[in-house]
């Protein structure tokens, strides 16, 4: 069960439209290292996470990623709100516009639709946590790439907030991986999947 709060985790108030920038930032909604993929990655992985503390962490970070998805969508929405046909053409937004008008649809900046193949849920705690740490770094790099193109402070500030959260999450996942490894005995560091019972009894 989730509970909605009628507020953003970080405020977004953008007064200048910019369709070109919107198309780039959209990648952090539905792109390969975006917030939708992040939320579904962690929320899918938690069911087979053997350590209950780490399952809790996946739930909490997965939930925060949904709030980040809302921030990214708010940025894209406010950058494209009330565009005129002329602004759409001048800003190179026509290829997105023709299919989605000014609605939000999860895709990468290059137009690749969101797909669950952007993330993995492998049912193995170490495999999954190593993926999660890499995912946080890939998202941080994407925000770095976005920040080099942004000169509007109103857009910069929420993007910088989201970038910082990737770093905090990376730290927490690093600690989670350490916790999982501390649970392993010397015969399984790392030989087989600690979440797959049948393998454990063989040792």
């Amino acid at each position, binding site marked *: 069960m989730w509970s909605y709060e009628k507020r953003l985790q970080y*405020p977004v108030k953008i007064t200048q439209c910019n369709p070109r920038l919107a198309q780039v930032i959209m990648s952090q909604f539905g792109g390969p290292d975006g917030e939708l993929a992040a939320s579904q990655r962690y929320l899918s992985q938690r069911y087979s996470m053997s350590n209950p503390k780490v399952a809790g962490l996946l739930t909490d970070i997965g939930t925060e990623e949904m709030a980040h998805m809302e921030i990214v969508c708010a940025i894209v929405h406010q950058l494209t709100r009330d565009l005129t046909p002329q602004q759409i053409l001048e800003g190179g937004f026509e290829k997105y516009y023709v299919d989605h008008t000014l609605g939000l649809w999860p895709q990468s900046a290059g137009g690749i639709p969101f797909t669950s193949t952007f993330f993995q849920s492998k049912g193995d705690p170490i495999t999954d946590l190593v993926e999660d740490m890499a995912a946080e770094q890939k998202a941080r790099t994407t925000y770095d790439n976005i920040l080099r193109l942004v000169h509007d402070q109103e857009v910069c500030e929420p993007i910088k907030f989201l970038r910082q959260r990737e770093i905090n999450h990376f730290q927490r996942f690093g600690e989670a991986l350490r916790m999982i490894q501390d649970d392993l005995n010397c015969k399984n560091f790392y030989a087989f999947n600690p979440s797959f019972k049948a393998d454990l009894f063989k040792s």
Partner: protein
Amino acid sequence: MDGMNKDKLFACIGALSFVMDDLRIYLDTHPMDQEALDYWKKVEKVRNEAVKEYTKCYGPINMYDVDVDDRWTWAEGPWPWEGRC
């Protein structure tokens, strides 16, 4: 919270909530950190008061806190992504 206007109180709730968002995931991996636990308790108390005050004066923030009097207020006012609240 006395004497705060709507925007200031809302910003205050956002800041307090974020402290708890970051503390929550820290406590997931450091569940015995007494300093962090004390900090959580302290911030939680202030946040609860702020949310209660805001909900009473300006309407619900949480979907379970909609007070029904003469009308349904949940969908009133701008949505968060509109950048007007």
